[in-house]
């Protein structure tokens, strides 16, 4: 129980990254590979956010009285992830458009059947 309480978020983000890497390495369908890349993206975002988390503290927004500098979490990872999420969506769309082009050129989505590409 204690293990899960202390390391839950690390386990979740590390698990997402490893699942994504497994998909990228093993699967042959290009759509699935793109999904795996986005798994890794999500895992890294969760990892960054939970490194900045401090137990029992609140968001770094001083909009109400009673929120002091001593009870807020680290704002820097949140600032980094905020832009990374939107960029992740745009890069995902770019990857899918390249997949569309690969499909039109080769008439297949399987990496195995594309000539000139071997694992």
């Amino acid at each position, binding site marked *: 129980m204690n293990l899960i309480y202390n*390391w839950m978020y690390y386990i979740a983000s590390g698990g997402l990254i490893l699942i994504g890497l497994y998909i990228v390495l*093993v699967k042959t369908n290009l759509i699935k590979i793109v999904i795996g890349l986005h798994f890794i993206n999500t895992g890294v975002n969760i990892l960054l956010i939970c490194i900045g988390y401090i137990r029992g503290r609140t968001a770094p927004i001083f909009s109400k009285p009673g929120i002091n500098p001593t009870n807020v979490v*680290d704002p820097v990872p949140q600032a980094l992830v*905020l832009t990374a999420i*939107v960029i992740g969506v745009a890069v995902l769309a770019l990857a899918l458009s390249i997949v569309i082009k690969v499909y039109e050129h080769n008439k297949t989505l399987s990496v195995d059947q594309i000539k000139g590409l071997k694992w």
Partner: protein
Amino acid sequence: MRRIISLIILAIIAVGFILTFSQIPFGKDKIDVANYYIKKGIEETGAVNIVTSVVLNYRGFDTLGEVTVLFIAALGLGAVLFVERKVQKNASNSEDESKRASLILRTGSNLLFPLILLFGAYVFVHGHLTPGGGFQGGAIIASGFLLMYLAFPKQSIDKKSSSVVESLSGLVFVGIGLLGLIFSGYFLTNFLPKGIPNTLFSAGIIPIIYVAVGLKVGFELTGIIDDLMGRSR
């Protein structure tokens, strides 16, 4: 064979991950640089949302770079899909009306679309006061346009005016940075009065930049949606 090699690689990475993160306790106070931002953030930038002041004031140049990355991704997508769109457009005229969305979806989208735009604008205008900001507000606006694309697949936004808005908002970001260079000697410095914290007109250049970022992100993601939807039209 490939599966076994992959699992061995993953096991090595997992061991490295565990060894690294067992040294970093979860949920403990380990912030160092950010203490300065938290303590001095309000008096130095005027924004009560410290995340916003980090994004646009302390690391404004970094954000300009990230907006550029977003722009390049959208540009690359347009370039990759461009040739096909011309061909697809001629074929779309001959399609029949059977692919129209249902009446419920069309009416509901018409009702929700202005509200979604309003909410997106609220999120990016109040970026320095409440959770949210230009990137999130832009994503909300793009989701509203996505709803309209799903309800009315035949129509599309005016590409010219949307790219004008997008370019102008990018220019506003860079222009405010250059004005800071002229007035205060540093790129992206806050040269406007900071005002009273916790009011809408505070924090100097931050709300202006966030409005520009919100419009830019919104129309950029809408352009991405348009490029991707243009293929099925």
